[in-house]
Structure formats: structure tokens, C-alpha cells
């Protein structure tokens, strides 16, 4: 099942090394993380050493080598959000979820991450859960937002 999907993604691209990053982004988009199987498969099909694929996948922030939660929370840490108090939002989220930034809750429901500016500075501080934007956040609003995804 998973391998079929991975193959379909690989088939979309010409078989050359320059597609690697695009390929990994698609796999990340499909599965929310990049598994060892996926890396193995790309290595076999494109003839790129596994070590090289790991190097790319571990360098870029958008790629995750561990499974992520059902809902991914991204707190914008751009400058505009920072001066409007984004740190307090992330502190509150860490406290409510009982995890640190970059971690996933035990029940695999939430992964908490930070992102360097989403470019909707007018709404800052902003947190994005999956694809939903929650603007003008305050620590007091955090619990209510989390409840929507429980």
C-alpha cells in the first residue's frame, strides 16, 4: 500500500538526482513523514546512495524522519509575530500539550512545530493547525483552539 504510493510519486518525476528534494517533499506531504522504506525505495529507483538522501532529509526543516501527529501545529516565529508575543503562545502550547517544540504528543494527536514566518504578519501572532490559520492569538485562546482538534 505505502510502497505503491511511493512508487507513484517517484514515477511523476524524471529519473535524475535533481528531483530528490521535490520527491521528498511530496512524500512528506503524503505521509506527514519520510520513512526508512521510502528512502530505501528512492535510493534503489534513482541510484542515489541512502546516506546522501538522509543528508538531504535531515538538513531541511520541512522534512521529518519521525512520524508526526495527526494534527501538526505550526507557530509562526517571524519577527512581526515575535514582537507581538509569539513566544508566549508557544510556551502556552508546550505547557498545555506537555511536549516541547518539535515533539509529538503520546497519543499521536498533535505535533508542535515552529515556522519562520508565514507571511501573514497582519494576523500575528499566528498559529496554523494543519491548514487552518488562527490569527491574533493570545495564550488565553490556546485551549479553545486545541479543543477543536481533540
Amino acid at each position, binding site marked *: 500500500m505505502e510502497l505503491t504510493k511511493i512508487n507513484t510519486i517517484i514515477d511523476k518525476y524524471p529519473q535524475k538526482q535533481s528531483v530528490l528534494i521535490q520527491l521528498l517533499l511530496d512524500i512528506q506531504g503524503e505521509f506527514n513523514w519520510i520513512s526508512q522504506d521510502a528512502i530505501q525505495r528512492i535510493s534503489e529507483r534513482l541510484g542515489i546512495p541512502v546516506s546522501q538522501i538522509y543528508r538531504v532529509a535531515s538538513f531541511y526543516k520541512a522534512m521529518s524522519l519521525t512520524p508526526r501527529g495527526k494534527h501538526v501545529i505550526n507557530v509562526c516565529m517571524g519577527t512581526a509575530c515575535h514582537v507581538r508575543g509569539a513566544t*508566549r503562545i508557544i510556551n502556552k502550547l508546550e505547557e498545555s500539550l506537555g511536549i516541547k517544540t518539535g515533539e509529538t504528543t503520546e497519543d499521536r494527536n498533535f505535533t508542535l512545530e515552529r515556522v519562520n514566518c508565514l507571511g501573514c504578519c497582519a494576523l500575528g501572532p499566528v498559529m496554523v493547525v494543519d491548514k487552518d490559520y488562527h490569527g491574533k492569538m*493570545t495564550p488565553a485562546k490556546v485551549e479553545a483552539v486545541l479543543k477543536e482538534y481533540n
Partner: protein
Amino acid sequence: MARINSPKELEELRQKILSQRDPNKPCITLCSGTACHASGSENIAAIFLQELEKEGLKADVDFRRTGCHGFCERGPIVVIYPEEICYLQVQPEDVPEIISQTIKEKKVIDRLLYADPTTGEKVTYEPEIPFYKNQKQVVFGTNRRIDPTSIEDYLAIGGYRALAKALFEMTPEQVVNEVTKANLRGRGGGGFPTGRKWETTRDAPGEPKYVIVNADEGDPGAYMDRSLLEGNPHSVLEGLVIGAYAIGSHEGFIYVRQEYPLAVENVYIAIKQAEEYGLLGKNILGSGFDFTIDVHRGAGAFVSGESSALMTAIEGRVGEPRPKYIRTAVSGIWDKPSNLNNVETWANVPLIIDRGANWYTSIGTEGSKGTKIFSLVGKVNNTGLVEVPMGVTLREIIYNIGGGIPGGKKFKAVQTGGPSGGVIPEKYLDAPVDFDELTKLDSMMGSGGMIVMDEDTCVVDVARYFIDFLCDESCGKCVPCREGLKHMREILDDIVSGRGKPGDIELLEGISRIMARASLCALGQTAPNPVLTTIKYFRDEYEAHIEEKRCPALVCKDLISFYIDPSKCQACMICGRECPVGAISGGKGLVHIIDQDKCTRCGTCFDVCPARFSAVRKISGEPVPEAIPEAERVLARGK
């Protein structure tokens, strides 16, 4: 759609599109940029379409989703043509009223109009709102007139006319000369003359040559490139094809952040449309010139926006910079000559070709021509994207367009140039903004981020924020950047948490000097700027943190305490209920007291205390007053 095979056919198509459009027909436009999208514009669009259908107005009224208008603070924005009536912060429930009142009855709905924050005076038409009136929107203004997913809209406003002119009326050399004459300087930060860069790639030995759009807009707090690319992608494509023709390139790349999903989507749509019309691909407009574009999504690495790193990423490898003894214009992607310009630079090109270098150089200052789009964010009333001629002052941008500082607070500083830029204090508010003047103030233009700070912003905390950001983003290839940033972060962490020592400021300055001279790429070379400028202009604040363990702006968590003023507390129990750690004691009629040992300084009590009481205070650099005796806690209410 049929392929266009000559400039004549292009003009015929344009006339045909225009003849089918009645400028007097009512048209409802809705901003669908990322910020308005996030404020629910898609839902509003659905309701508009539904209502128009229901009212049987579909044939009489056009509806259009447009690119970003720039006034993001007041989104979602609806503008009704031909009058250009502008409604701000439109909610789903307002839609039926807009249809029944404004569309049917031609009546303006007062409550949805822009109101001047000081006088309360209402403004009906979009161009008359001070936020727009004080701008000069040459590049960005078209965004709000077109649907970014419609090439016909772009053609209707004169799109691809410059391309036809370049291909059929000019030689590649003439195109390069025109851009050189216009003195277009790179909008990505460096301000390097675009014409010279093109010439270098053009003259460099080696084939094929590549042209690249850098849309890896990584500066936090800057989003003009995203808004251009998602709001008017064809203007960037047109600039790129013109550049490719001038340089002699047949293959181009657009490198765009994957954090900008809407921009990625709209670029793909635009490329497909341009290909179908024969404006991209083989034999463009029948000129014999071939050019194709590939889109590469960036995967979240700030350093990959650096030219050599970006090119390595396009090759599918880790996007790290390399020493640039040989410039990328000579040896870039796969060691071939590669010309890289940022989104805004490319979007300027069609204008220069269409209207000429003489027109272009009539805007701006001696050394910096044309306009610049800034992302005006932070502690400012009108957050948004503003386009101004080079040379206007910071004060004009922040006050006349930005509407000043919210909440009656005092302006403290403005940060320009992103993590490579500096902080500019109040005394330079009248400095003109262009490439050279900002450099004189030890800051830089950068890509156009302008983050306004008020008295409640701690500059030491901001410096720490940028160093922390860069520390995470440094690729680690060279020692001065990797180790220098780490040490700077440690020192700044100490300062903001009350562990600062005498000599720390000098140590920061010393590390900065070495990093600026010895780092491999611009990331490390310019990384110390936010620290150096804050030390230069706000040294007293650093000293207060280090010597008095005091944060003058009352921001740094470890240096402040929260205290409830017993003379103001009305014992309403709101803060007690909201405190996440149960640190507040008190009850009905009993003045509340914060247990300082339990308090985590999250600031919730400060936020929730009703403004009419304002009983919660922040204290820094002095001890928290003793709690009042139990007997005096009982509140005597006049019941």
C-alpha cells in the same frame, strides 16, 4: 485557447478580451491573498456566488478573486467596481446586505468603510484611503485589478506587451542596455545592478545558461515577494522571459518556499496558461526564441536563499553556500553561467521595457531608481505591503501610510533588512529610504522587511531573537558563523535572563567583528548587524539588563514580576480563574495576591485584568512590594 503566433495576434487577442468587457458593469472583487484567505475570504467568496445566483444577478454582476491588496490588517477586503467602493473586514453575514444595498440600491454601507482612527471620518473609495493614497503602486498596484489565475486578466491590463516589444523590436543587447540604463538594482537585498549581472552571465563562456527567480523569501516578517508571485505571477514570468532572451538562456527555474502554498499553486497555473498561449515554450510568439521554466520548491532552509546555496538545492543537493571566488553569474547551476534575481526585481523588468528607462529613472533617488515594496509589520496600525518611490522617509512610511503606532504607544525603533539588517532609532526617522542611505545607518534595505517596534519592545530580546533564528539556520559549514552565532546566543541568553556579566557587550562586539570578516557567506557576514546596531543605539538597555538586572521594556521574562496593585484590584476573580498555575489567591471581595514563587510569568493575569481596573503591573529591577496584611484585603464595596 489558441496559440498566439505574432505580436499582431497578441494585440488582436487583447482587443478581443477588452471588447468583451464592459468597464461600467458592476464587478465585486475580493482579496484572496494569504492573509485574507486566513481571515476566511474563501467562505465569503462562496457566499457571494451563492447570493448572486439566488438574486438572479449572475449575468449582470461580475465576481473576481484578486491578488493581495496589501492592506492585510483590514482583510478580508471587498472592492466594488466601477466606483471602487471599498469594504474592509467583511464578514459572511455582511454579504447579503452588500448585494441588496450596494449592488441593487447603489447605497454605501457606512459601517464597512474605512474610518480614520483619529477623526473617525469615513472613506468610501479605495484609492482615497490614506494607506493607498500615500503610496506609489507601480509594480504592486496591478495585483488588486486582476485574478492571478486568469491570464486574460493580465493581458487586459497590457500584459506580455513588453515581451513582444523585447522579442521583436529590440536586440538582446538593447534589452540589457535598457535595464542597465534604468539602473535597476537587485531587490533581494544586495542592491547589485541587475543590468551588470545580466551582462556577466551573457558574456560568460559555457552553455546552457540559466535564469532563476529567487522566491525563497526567508526574511521573517517580509512577504512582498510571496504576494507578488501569488497575486500577479504573470508579471514575474514575463520579466523572466525577457531576461532570458537578453541573456541568451533557454531554461529557467523558479525557486519558491513550500511554506507559500498559494504562490506555488498560482505559479503552476500561470506557467501552464503561458505555455498554452505560446508565451512560453518553443518559438515564443513566433519569434524563434525557446524558453521553458521549472518550479522547485524550497524545503525550509533560510540559507538556501543565498545564491550559490539555492543553485546547489536546484541540483537536488543540500542547499549550502560555497565560497564565491567565481560568481554564480559565471559558474552556477551545474557550473554553468546562471543569473539569479529575486521576484520583485523580475517584476520590474516588463515595466522598464514597456515604458522605457527614462520613465523609470524619473522615480527614485540618484543612486536608487524606481519604487520598493516594503512589508510594514509589527507595532503599527496599518500592517501591510506598501510600495513607495525610493527616497521617501521612514516617517512617511510609518506614519502617513502605516498610520502610526497602535494604542497610543511611543515609537521606539524600526528594524529593516531582516536578520542581516539593523535597528534604526527614532532620531533617524526622517532619513530617506534607499539602498545607500540605510547602509549609512548601519542597517540595510534587504528584501524590504520593515518591523516597527514600540516602547513595549525590548531591543535586547529582538537581537537575541535574530541571533537565535540565525543560529538555527546557519548551515554549519564555516566555523566563524557556526561557532560565533552559538556563543553570541549563549551570551544574549545570559543577558536576558539576568546572568549577564560586565564585559559581555565588548565580547559580543569582538565576536561580531570576526564573523563579519571571516564568514563564508552573507548569512554569517551580516548576522551581527542586529546586535551591533542595538548596542550602538540602545547601549543603555544592555547595561540595564546586565548591571541592574532590569528590562526597561518589561519584556524579558526572567527579569520581571507581576504584581496586583491592591489599591486598584476590584476582586473580580477573572485573573484568579485564568491563572494556569493557580498562583493567585483571593476571592469575592478579597483583594487578589500573586504568589511569586508559583508564578511562571506567563502574563495571562496582565492580559485578562479588565482595562478599567488595570490592576496588574509589571515590575523589573526592584523588589515586589510586600503583600498587604490579611485584614486590609477585604474590599469595601459601596453596597
